[in-house]
């Protein structure tokens, strides 16, 4: 697919998920919209390989920011892992799909929601692949808020020590947590210095620029080092009603005007 096609796909998925938000009246739009180009790049940029015969992915994506796992539901639907019935049912009672992902959903590789777990779990998978000479990669998407969790740093140390070059961490840096800007709440900066200070190969990228994302993912794929991508993003990307607004971490009731504006912007 061309870059332009992938950009349109990201827009389409944002729009579809927005309609689901309107239906379900729950979820985490800010965090989902900030990582849409990241997941589109991974699934459609040739990084997550799909076995058409077995109908499964060879490589893994662990969405550590579990509140945003539903960003991948429309992608899993388009790969045929989530069927139309389950997709349509999302938002009704007893539906398979829900706000937080879990391993009962086809194509979701981990049950997440509690923050700070998935770098460690991804490292465990990566060790297993290396020991068994399996040509498989693990991508872990974390929120910058997970940098507050001690287990994140424990796992980064481990992955660096083992030089897990089949593991790539993508940090979605949208600069907002529930109570406000990270710089005001408890400053994390300079994130790049902190990660690279551990000796980890660290790259910085515009997390909404698919061309840049794919280029940097190619670099980390070819690298012989454990690597980390800092993706600078906008919380609520695509909707002026939501962008950079902390209260849009969660779904909020919208006026008719706000719905119209967002629909128009997501076209």
């Amino acid at each position, binding site marked *: 697919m061309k870059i332009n096609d992938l950009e349109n796909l990201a827009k389409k998925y944002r729009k579809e998920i927005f309609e689901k938000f309107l239906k379900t009246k729950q979820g985490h739009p800010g965090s989902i919209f900030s990582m849409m180009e990241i997941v589109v790049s991974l699934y459609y940029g040739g990084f997550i390989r799909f076995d058409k015969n077995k109908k499964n992915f060879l490589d893994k994506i662990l969405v550590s920011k579990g509140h945003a796992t539903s960003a991948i539901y429309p992608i899993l639907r388009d790969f045929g892992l989530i069927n139309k019935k389950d997709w349509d049912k999302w938002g009704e009672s007893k539906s398979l799909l829900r706000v937080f992902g879990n391993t009962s959903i086809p194509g979701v590789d*981990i049950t997440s929601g509690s923050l700070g777990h998935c770098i*460690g779990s991804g490292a465990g998978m990566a*060790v297993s692949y290396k020991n068994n000479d399996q040509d498989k990669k693990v991508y872990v998407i974390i929120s910058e808020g997970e940098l507050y969790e001690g287990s994140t740093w424990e796992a980064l140390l481990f992955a660096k020590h083992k030089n897990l070059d089949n593991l790539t961490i993508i940090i979605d840096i949208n600069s907002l947590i529930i109570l406000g800007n990270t710089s005001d709440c408890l400053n994390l900066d300079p994130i790049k210095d902190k990660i690279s200070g551990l000796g980890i190969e660290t790259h910085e990228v515009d997390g909404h620029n698919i061309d840049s994302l794919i280029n940097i993912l190619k670099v980390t794929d070819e690298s012989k080092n454990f690597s980390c991508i800092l993706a600078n993003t906008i919380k609520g990307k695509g909707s002026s009603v939501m962008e950079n607004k902390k209260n849009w971490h969660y779904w909020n009731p919208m006026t008719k005007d706000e719905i119209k504006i967002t629909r128009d912007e997501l076209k």
Partner: protein
Amino acid sequence: MTLQRDIFIKEIIKKMEIDKKIYFLSADFGAAALDELRAKFPKNFIHCGISEQAMLDIATGLALEKNKVFVYAMAPFLSLRAIEQVKCGPGLMKLPICMISVGIGLGYADAGPTHYANEDFSCFRSIVGSSIFTPSDNQTTKLIAQDMLTKPKFSYVRLDRDKQYDLQPKVNSTDYRNGFKIFGKVVENKIAVISHGKIFHDCIQAFKQKENKYILINLFRSKPFPINLAKSVKKIKNFLVVDEQTPSGNLSSCVFEGFRDKNFFPKIISKSLPERYFFENGGREYLLNKFGLSKKDILKATKDF
């Protein structure tokens, strides 16, 4: 005598010779047998640093890839520090990770309260889907290790820091399947004493040569609670439950709930440590004596029936 941890690890080493899917993770906690394991299987031994939380997450990733995973650390840290990782990994995803926890109760008496594990039992009882084992001797420890290697399951194995005497008669395969072993003949007017781990040996000493009045029950598997236990002791009306834990959610709660589920409501007296932390220095026996778990105290507790 060999330490329980060495017995357990030796069984793992035997199996690792033929099974490359076995992983042993340590949070910088050692054992004589572990030196052999590390030397023989460097790829399958993973030093996670003094990072119990990451260790559990790494174990989760390995288990998701269908490996047989053992994690190993000092009891207070493996249990409480990483308990949310336990819930989210092997708990929520039903992964067969075996946690080997060493130094339960007041085992690290010389170290002080940060190193005591007097709450680990109740914490793990509350984690959905876990099995809990507290062996009192090496034979039982060996059987648990063999079971976890043959049929891996989400389990919390509580080992003592110190060497433990062998139980006589030995726990056999039938006892193992049951999850408990009764020492003495079940007779209506006897008092049953239930315990596990090191403190079970103190019970043996306390009730020595009083077999006409007491039976002893070694409850080495407390979760799932043995389904046959209530039936096996239904003639008995009075139970003393002895545990080196603080009161909330300890072995007596476990026994009460296990019996209740079988509609069996005997009188149960709990003999455990008091609801406090222990800063006093003087060794394990000193602390047990000071806080009401001496052999004399255990015997005296039966006078209340």
